[in-house]
């Protein structure tokens, strides 16, 4: 843009020259045509002149750049101490930013490697309750597919994240699979690494070929990357399938956060699992199909929306009992996969923004330190610069040279920062999420992270370099040569103090945010969960993965529980479909006798299916009625135990025992409330507790689901493991145990404490970094100030000032800087607190305790940093000081 303009101007300038020359000749009496010819001859080719000028300009630029780089490198080599401190400081700042950006990249930017991802979108229905539904039945999928050919070139479906068991060569291992329509891979445009992928067949019937495509990582890990797996026959949940191919490396399925380990044809869902037996025909199916579409070339997502809206309206009018949709829409594919809830997506973005801001603040603190160092040097170099300016160095030229020097520093800092950042993000990637889900915590550095790091470094160079460069080149030679060192730097001190005040403020803001996160974690860890997680060990099994059918599963669990309960050292044991804070949660729509829902209200409760001694095992107190008995079984009347919140909401505090309700999808079978228990937390340690209920495992249990055996015991963990695994394998030698952990560990999940721990650790690291940088800054400026006043201190002491007075004098300066910084920091923290508030549990974003203790911590450490130079000043020998110059 700028170049084009410069070129046009050059053209006009040279042509103007020719014209003026011709006019001059005309005035001298030469004929107009002849004058033009002569003028052109004299100039010797407009294009040639332009070319020569352009070359000079470009050559000049490169030459000075090279000169500046060489000069800068020489200056940095000459002061190795300064260079090392500055580079390390910048590396800390840039490293923190790179590490955090690599997580943001992972969570929000890294798209699954599908062809033309901008054309790929997933569908969501907004239901009549205002919720979002991203799981469709197969008949819905077929209707949508056939009715939307105007805007989509293809529509595919997938049951994402089914938990199956794969048995090969006598080993049975869990595998996370997708059941996909035949056109799935074709729709997203993915090619196999090996063999072939699932192919489109006419329709998706239950007679689909029994084939399996392995995920790349699973193939490497479980089959050693052996290409001979193609054609191998293995069992999925006991059903034989042939491996036909391997998905490409780096493709984890339609999301980049979770690793899909295997892909099966959709029709097989009816075979491998009874839950999806009638999946292909049942519009009411509870298992949802994620719908992935590819827009026709040239069709925008916005023009697909009205088409979908019409389809949605048509289907909900046609099938009012199942398709309760207000609207049907498409969302562009996001790196986290198909959007399941448009709101949760934005939360990730807010968290990302928050931590990028905090990391940016750390970088600014680092920059201020380096700017401060450079500024100190700038005054030293003012004379050098003034002399150079006096011999014809233009100021812009000198500024450019000094900026090149800081750019060099920033680049060195950037390289070191990338190294630090990659160590940090590898460390963050190694955290234990305490869940069996194949979460990919791979914060690898891709081109975006590198681009970000270099962008940050360039900005850093400007931020760090511009003020010192302008200061260094401002000097007027005459004044400077007549000033002595002391007076020349007096003005500098004010500027540097201002920088340090900003630093103390920024650091306090980081500390306060860190304090809020730590307090919030403490609250979360000490929150009353309503159950007692200590001394409980969880063992998760999924009999259907070993090929068990429903009857076999029930029999296995029925035999297992008494055996485990009878183990020496076992206090109580229970079975449960889900674990508090775990990855799986169930919920159901209800119809409650005598409860009139307001229009559009979702009468809903979360639920768990448990064995009789569950409440005793987790120590959830019974408030009224009874818990389950062994006599509550498949044949007896259906019963439920509810929590306080459910009694409060649906029976308005009246005694709920003996009342009836039903599941909305099964209104003919009433369920009687037989007991009420205290509220306990099933997921999320903070926020309101919602209506929740418990069914007997024998009555509401789908044998496809995993079940967790929970054992309360004082036995050492290793002993308990050995005993329980022995009991399981004596009953079922090939039964895979998906997960073994204590209930306390099981709280540290994404639904439990993990995010609080992660947030607190991250915020605390940034806070500590900020504190260290600010302390270095305060120390630097106060000791510099003290050394500049050595002469003055000497005079004062010679005139009889006491050491204590000198101490106070130096200290006063420190106190001024620190207290101004504290005020700035508190105001800044209160401003950002609104953003932080959403992620805190049980602590106000303007919590006075946090603000006061962070301020005190910073004040004490910063004043200690002042004490060292103040003490040194106090010990000044007046004679030495007076001679000092």
């Amino acid at each position, binding site marked *: 843009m700028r170049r084009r303009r410069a070129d046009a101007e050059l053209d006009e*300038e040279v042509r103007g020259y020719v014209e003026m020359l011709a006019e001059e000749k005309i005035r001298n009496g030469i004929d107009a045509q002849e004058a033009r010819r002569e003028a052109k001859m004299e100039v010797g080719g407009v294009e*040639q002149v332009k070319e020569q*000028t352009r070359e000079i300009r470009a050559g000049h630029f490169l030459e000075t750049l090279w000169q500046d780089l060489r000069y800068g490198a020489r200056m940095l080599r000459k002061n190795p101490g300064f260079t090392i401190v500055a580079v390390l400081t910048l590396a800390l700042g840039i490293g923190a930013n790179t590490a955090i950006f690599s997580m943001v990249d992972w969570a929000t930017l890294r798209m699954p490697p599908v062809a033309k991802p901008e054309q790929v979108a997933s569908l969501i229905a907004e239901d009549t309750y205002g919720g979002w539904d991203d799981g469709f039945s197969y008949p819905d999928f077929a209707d949508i597919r056939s009715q939307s050919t105007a805007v989509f070139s293809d529509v595919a479906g997938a049951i994402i994240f089914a938990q199956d068991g794969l048995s090969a060569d006598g080993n049975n291992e869990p595998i996370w699979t997708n059941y996909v329509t035949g056109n799935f891979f074709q729709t997203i445009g993915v090619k196999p690494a090996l063999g072939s992928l699932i192919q489109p067949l006419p329709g998706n019937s239950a007679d689909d070929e029994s084939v399996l495509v392995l995920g790349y990582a699973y193939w490497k890990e479980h089959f050693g990357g052996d290409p001979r797996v193609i054609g191998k026959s293995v069992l999925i949940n006991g059903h034989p399938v042939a491996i036909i191919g391997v998905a490409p490396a780096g493709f984890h399925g339609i999301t980049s956060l979770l690793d899909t380990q295997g892909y099966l044809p959709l029709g097989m869902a009816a075979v491998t699992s009874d839950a999806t037996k009638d999946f292909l025909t049942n519009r009411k199916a509870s298992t949802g199909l994620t719908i992935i579409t590819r827009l026709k070339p040239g069709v925008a997502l916005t023009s697909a929306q009205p088409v979908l809206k019409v389809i949605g309206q048509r289907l909900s009018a046609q099938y009012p009992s199942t398709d309760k949709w207000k609207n049907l829409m498409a969302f562009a594919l996001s790196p986290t996969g198909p959007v399941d809830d448009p709101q949760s997506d934005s939360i990730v973005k807010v968290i990302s923004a928050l931590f990028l801001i905090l990391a940016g603040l750390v970088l600014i603190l680092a920059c201020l330190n380096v700017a401060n160092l450079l500024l100190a040097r700038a005054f030293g170099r003012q004379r050098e610069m003034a002399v150079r300016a006096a*011999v*014809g160095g*233009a100021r*812009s030229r000198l500024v450019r040279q000094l900026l090149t020097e800081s750019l060099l520093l920033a680049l060195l800092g950037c390289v070191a920062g990338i190294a630090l950042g990659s160590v940090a993000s590898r460390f963050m990637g190694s955290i234990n999420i305490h869940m069996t889900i194949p979460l990919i915590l791979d914060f690898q550095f891709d081109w975006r992270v590198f681009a970000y790091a270099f962008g940050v470094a360039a900005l850093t160079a400007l931020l760090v370099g511009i003020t010192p460069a302008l200061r260094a080149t401002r000097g007027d030679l005459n004044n400077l040569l007549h000033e002595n060192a002391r007076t020349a730097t007096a003005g500098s001190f004010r500027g540097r103090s201002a920088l340090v005040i900003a630093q103390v403020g920024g650091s306090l803001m980081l500390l306060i945010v860190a304090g809020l996160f730590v307090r919030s974690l403490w609250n979360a860890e000490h929150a009353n969960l309503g159950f007692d997680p200590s001394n409980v060990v969880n063992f998760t099994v999924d009999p259907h993965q070993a090929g068990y059918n429903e009857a076999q599963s029930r029999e296995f669990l029925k035999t297992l529980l008494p055996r485990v309960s009878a183990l020496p050292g076992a206090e109580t044991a229970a079975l449960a479909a889900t674990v508090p804070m775990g990855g799986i949660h169930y919920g159901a729509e209800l119809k409650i006798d005598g409860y009139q829902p307001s229009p559009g209200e979702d009468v809903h409760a979360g639920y768990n299916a448990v064995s009789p001694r569950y409440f005793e095992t987790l120590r959830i107190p019974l408030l009224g009625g009874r818990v389950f008995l062994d006599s509550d079984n498949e044949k007896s009347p259906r019963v439920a135990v509810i929590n306080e919140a459910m009694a409060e909401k649906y029976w308005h505090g009246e005694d709920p025992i003996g009342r009836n309700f039903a599941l909305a999808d099964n209104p003919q079978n009433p369920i009687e409330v037989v007991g009420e228990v205290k509220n306990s937390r099933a997921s999320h340690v903070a926020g309101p507790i919602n209506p929740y209920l418990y069914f007997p495992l024998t009555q509401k249990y789908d044998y496809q689901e995993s079940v967790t055996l929970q054992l309360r015991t004082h036995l050492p963990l290793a002993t308990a493991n050995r005993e329980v695994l022995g009991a399981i394998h004596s009953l079922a030698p090939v039964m895979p145990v998906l997960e073994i952990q204590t209930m306390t560990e099981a709280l540290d999940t994404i639904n439990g404490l993990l995010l609080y721990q992660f947030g607190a650790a991250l915020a605390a690291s940034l806070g500590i970094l900020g504190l260290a940088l600010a302390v270095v800054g305060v120390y630097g400026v106060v000791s510099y100030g003290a050394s500049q006043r050595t002469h003055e201190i000497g005079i004062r002491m010679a005139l009889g000032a006491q050491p204590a007075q000198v101490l106070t004098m130096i200290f006063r300066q420190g106190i001024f800087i620190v207290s101004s910084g504290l005020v700035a920091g508190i105001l800044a923290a209160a401003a950002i607190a609104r953003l932080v508030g959403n992620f805190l549990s049980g602590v106000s974003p303007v919590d006075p305790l946090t603000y006061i203790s962070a301020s005190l911590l910073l004040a004490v450490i910063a004043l200690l940093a002042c004490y060292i130079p103040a003490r040194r000043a106090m010990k000044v020998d007046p004679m030495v000081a007076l001679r000092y110059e």
Partner: protein
Amino acid sequence: MTREQTELLQGTLDMLILKSLALGEMHGLGISRRIEQITRGTFQVKPGSLFPALHRMEEEGWLEASWGESENNRRAKYYRLTKAGKRQLETETQRWGRISLAIERALEA
């Protein structure tokens, strides 16, 4: 052409341009004519060396340029000295004074 010669010639041209702009701003042709005039026709600067020199000196920060109207109502680019350019002229003048004195003495000896 050896390096020393280029630098000497370039330095001379730079000095002449600086000198011709010392009295006020001027466009390219004006500078050419002015150099001819003050050197009594000894130096005739062709656009092929004039424009590269002007642009280089602008980059160096010695000259500033802006567009204005020429005597015949034509848009033309006018150059003027910056502070750094004035200082450069002083240094160059002194340096030239020393060199020419030295050479004169050398030749007279």
